[in-house]
């Protein structure tokens, strides 16, 4: 529910163009920063994007909700590289008819914000502790805070272009079930990673890639 897969033809042109413009600038700056420093980051972004796509194949059918595990991806990549992964994931989804092609910009922006906000919240809530319990709780809370915010952002964007009618009511009714499942899965997964290989969640590990 974080990204609503806004289809083509729903939003006005100015909003679509604005979404593309912001995304191009954001990702352009990131690519500029990391230009000439080919490193393990390329491979890491690739596998984390693929991991998110795998997670998205796990669906709660009656709700039309699929898991994202975006907070885990954000925690692994950090804020700096998350938008690149978001663009990759949204592009793949759009080419498969899962969200509009023209709104890749907006959908990727929302997903980027989700990854960045989730990553920041996870880091803040976890603090300096590396224990599995703390990591699990921090991950769960990060999801429970991030997903409603990004869903509201998606609805807000949609409302800028059209009368959303009952859409917020539908999402507020169904969304929390998906958010809760996502939060539980994220918390348990992060807790498991913290127990088995805590170094993966270290900031230092993200930077060096070693």
């Amino acid at each position, binding site marked *: 529910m974080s990204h609503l897969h806004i289809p083509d033809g729903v939003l006005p042109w100015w909003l679509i163009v604005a979404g593309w413009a912001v995304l191009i600038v954001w990702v352009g700056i990131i690519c500029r920063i990391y230009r000439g420093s080919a490193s393990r980051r*390329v491979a890491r972004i690739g596998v984390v994007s693929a991991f998110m796509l795998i997670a998205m194949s796990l669906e709660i059918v009656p709700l039309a909700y699929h898991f994202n595990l975006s907070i885990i991806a954000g925690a692994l990549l950090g804020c700096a590289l998350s938008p690149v992964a978001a663009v*990759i994931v949204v592009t793949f989804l759009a*080419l498969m008819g899962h969200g509009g092609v023209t709104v890749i910009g907006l959908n990727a922006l929302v997903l980027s914000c989700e990854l960045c906000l989730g990553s920041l919240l996870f880091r803040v809530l976890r603090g300096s502790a590396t224990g599995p319990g703390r990591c699990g709780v921090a991950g769960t809370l990060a999801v429970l805070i991030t997903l409603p915010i990004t869903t509201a952002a998606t609805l807000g964007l949609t409302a800028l272009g059209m009368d959303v009618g009952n859409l917020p009511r539908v999402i507020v009714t169904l969304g929390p079930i998906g958010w809760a499942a996502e939060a539980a899965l994220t918390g348990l997964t992060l807790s498991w990673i913290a127990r088995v290989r805590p170094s993966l969640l270290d900031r230092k590990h993200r930077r060096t890639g070693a």
Partner: protein
Amino acid sequence: MNLRDIDTCATGGTGWLHRTPLAAKAGAWLVAIALALTLPANRTGLYALAALILVLTVIAITARLPWRLYATLLAWPLCFGCLFAITCDLDGAARWMLIARAVGVAQASLTVVLTTPWPRLAQVSARTLPRLLSDALIMSWRSFFLLNDRMTALLRALRLRGGLRWRRPLQALAATARAFGTLLLYAMDLADRDWDVLVLRGYDGKFRVGGVTVGVNGETPARPQPGMEETL
């Protein structure tokens, strides 16, 4: 996620559209999208859009695209189109137009994706996108299949051992979390291993895609990098 089926169809298909040059398909794709999005939201526009959808359907049939996969992939834009159309305050023609636009544009994209092997699309992306993004895009395509195989095996093992019983949702959730954790560890090791292999094979920041070495802004570097094609 039907990426594997999409890849099989794109690389193994024998229809006329598979043999059509990518430039022609890309041009037709752009025209179809422009048409779908610019038609007016009235009865005339709706009929024109219905005609476009019909044409795209005929193309899909004559190009021998697997109808089940095609229909499954179209179900998502149809569902989301319906969700927006039903919940938002729209009049009759605008409501149908919204659904038809979502389906029409998705049909156009799927027609290209289902008839063009990914390396060909990656070749275009490598020429136009920044290096970090295009290389990561190529890596994610390859990683997806490796991780997907791993996840399928993990879930099968869990099912066989009784870890995924939907009557016990908490146990199933914990088992799924462990499967994802295991997959993630495998993924990070895979990333490190892939990087080492790329460096050993001479990767210096430019992938060789579809027989053409592509670097930043599409320039061709002097030194070839053998084995890059195999990475794909």
